[in-house]
């Protein structure tokens, strides 16, 4: 059954879209990730214009992040002070990102930039996850993890504008979360992702936040930044397809439910290795596509 997507201006099979949403939702339920970094490339693979895929990806990530945020908020796992600074950085970054998005689109280099960004991110994230989980699997059997300090102090913590974050038990420079939020905001605008896959490791290893509040605080930031990206994409580029986002969400909600149930049967390291392989495969596909001669060297483009 085909459905005409009003903003993408093409017809797609509604079951393909539901399956795509369900597949990504299953993975996000399985691994506890947002999945925006898979939604956007998959939408492009099935023929959605990249500009619409990115903007709609952000809109769908917003919807998908709500339930997680509610859950973490109830358990009190959100550091609002840290989150607020991450949001401030994220707003600045996403405003810049949307401007860059419009500029690249006008220059005809948007699709290339999106591909490059995905190759870089997926290409480094995938192998990292595989290596990390491989090491964890080998560590099994050996005695428990070595005792670590609360967090490592690096030169980053010595930057000016130091601030206390009682919830995270930290005294670090506010520039750290501000800069991180900003980078994630740019990625959100250009790639249509929430950016949790970057923010979470950075919060743990760079800022040194306790793992307990990391997920809730990053989701808190993602809600505000993807909302801002959705609004700016809609007002400046008219690329948010709400119908597409809703269909994806329906699939994602159902898929996530099954993913969560299934995850109980698998070990964490195996799960991470599997996700690493999937991420690497998508990254490789985008990388190879850059080198393949297109169907026609000439193409009709969006005329500003």
């Amino acid at each position: 059954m085909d459905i005409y997507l009003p903003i993408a201006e093409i017809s797609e099979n509604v079951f393909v879209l539901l399956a795509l949403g369900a597949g990504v939702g299953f993975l996000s339920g399985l691994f506890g990730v947002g999945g925006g970094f898979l939604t956007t490339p998959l939408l492009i693979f099935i023929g959605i214009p990249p500009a619409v895929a990115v903007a709609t990806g952000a809109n769908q990530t917003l919807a998908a992040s709500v339930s997680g945020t509610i859950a973490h908020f109830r358990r009190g796992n959100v550091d609002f002070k840290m989150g607020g600074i991450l949001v401030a950085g994220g707003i600045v970054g996403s405003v810049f990102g949307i401007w860059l998005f419009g500029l690249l689109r006008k220059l005809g280099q948007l699709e290339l930039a999106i591909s490059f960004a995905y190759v870089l991110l997926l290409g480094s994230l995938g192998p990292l996850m595989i290596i990390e989980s491989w090491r964890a699997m080998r560590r099994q059997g050996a005695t428990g993890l070595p005792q670590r300090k609360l967090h490592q102090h690096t030169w980053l913590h010595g930057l000016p504008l130091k601030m206390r974050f009682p919830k995270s038990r930290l005294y670090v420079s506010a520039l750290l979360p501000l800069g991180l939020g900003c980078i994630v905001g740019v990625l959100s605008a250009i790639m249509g992702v929430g950016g949790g896959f970057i923010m979470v490791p950075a919060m743990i290893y760079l800022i040194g936040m306790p793992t307990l509040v990391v997920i809730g605080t990053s989701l808190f930031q993602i809600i505000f930044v993807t909302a801002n990206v959705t609004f700016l994409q809609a007002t400046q580029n008219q690329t948010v397809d709400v119908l597409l986002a809703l269909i994806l969400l329906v699939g994602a909600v159902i898929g996530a439910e099954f993913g969560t149930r299934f995850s109980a049967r698998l070990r964490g390291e195996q799960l991470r290795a599997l996700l690493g392989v999937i991420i690497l495969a998508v990254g490789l596909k985008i990388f190879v596509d850059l080198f393949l001669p297109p169907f026609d060297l000439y193409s009709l483009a969006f005329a500003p």
Partner: protein
Amino acid sequence: MMGLRRLVFGLFALLAIVQPGPARAQALVADLSDHFIAITTGFIGTDVLLFGAIEGDGDVIVVLRGPTGKELVRRKSRVAGIFVNDKDMAFVNVPTFYSVSSNRPLAEILSTNVRMRHEIGFDTLRFTPERAAGAADLPLADTFRQALIRNKQNAELYVEDPGKVVFLGARLFRTRVYFPSNLPTGSYTADVYLVRDGAVISAQSTPLVVSKVGFGAEVYDFAYQWPMAYGALAVLLALFAGWIAALVFRRT
């Protein structure tokens, strides 16, 4: 004086073409099975039937033209192994949709000059580069022009189909025009030409409107006319849908 006489003669010749004498009245009648194409949420493309009758013998050419607009053509080149957009050219007055069908190949029916006059056939389309090309750029402009037509053909928006017009007996004819799902909206015209001895002896123009209707149309109009409200609504809708989803699958 010579110039004036030629002009007067030319005007008479033109009148003879567009206003056939009373003896030839109703040499051609034609109509469409639909004058309105609605792009609904379930739109997957549609066929429109064009049918008519001619008086006496002759060939029939049917041209469907969409509204004209600006099109941007980009060219990719290989840079360090990667295909990158490196040159573009904008054209104006480009028909968004253009379909020609006839009962015989166009070249057998009409000379290039006559086809040029009526814009019948891809090679006669009068769209031009937005910035006038210098003499040195003409071959490049032509390559981009060909690429535009080729891309439109691949999108099924430009079609040339000799043999698609079928005669039922000596007088009745019909043809089927396919409109794909990526159809641009606007006012179209269906022009039917009756050709005899290498000249267009009668022509008829019928309008056709392509418009988005229903839910999809409302979403589209809303997004473009009130982008702020649409953006805010998209945010609220996502928050609400996410909240509903969390309620439905509430975890303990």
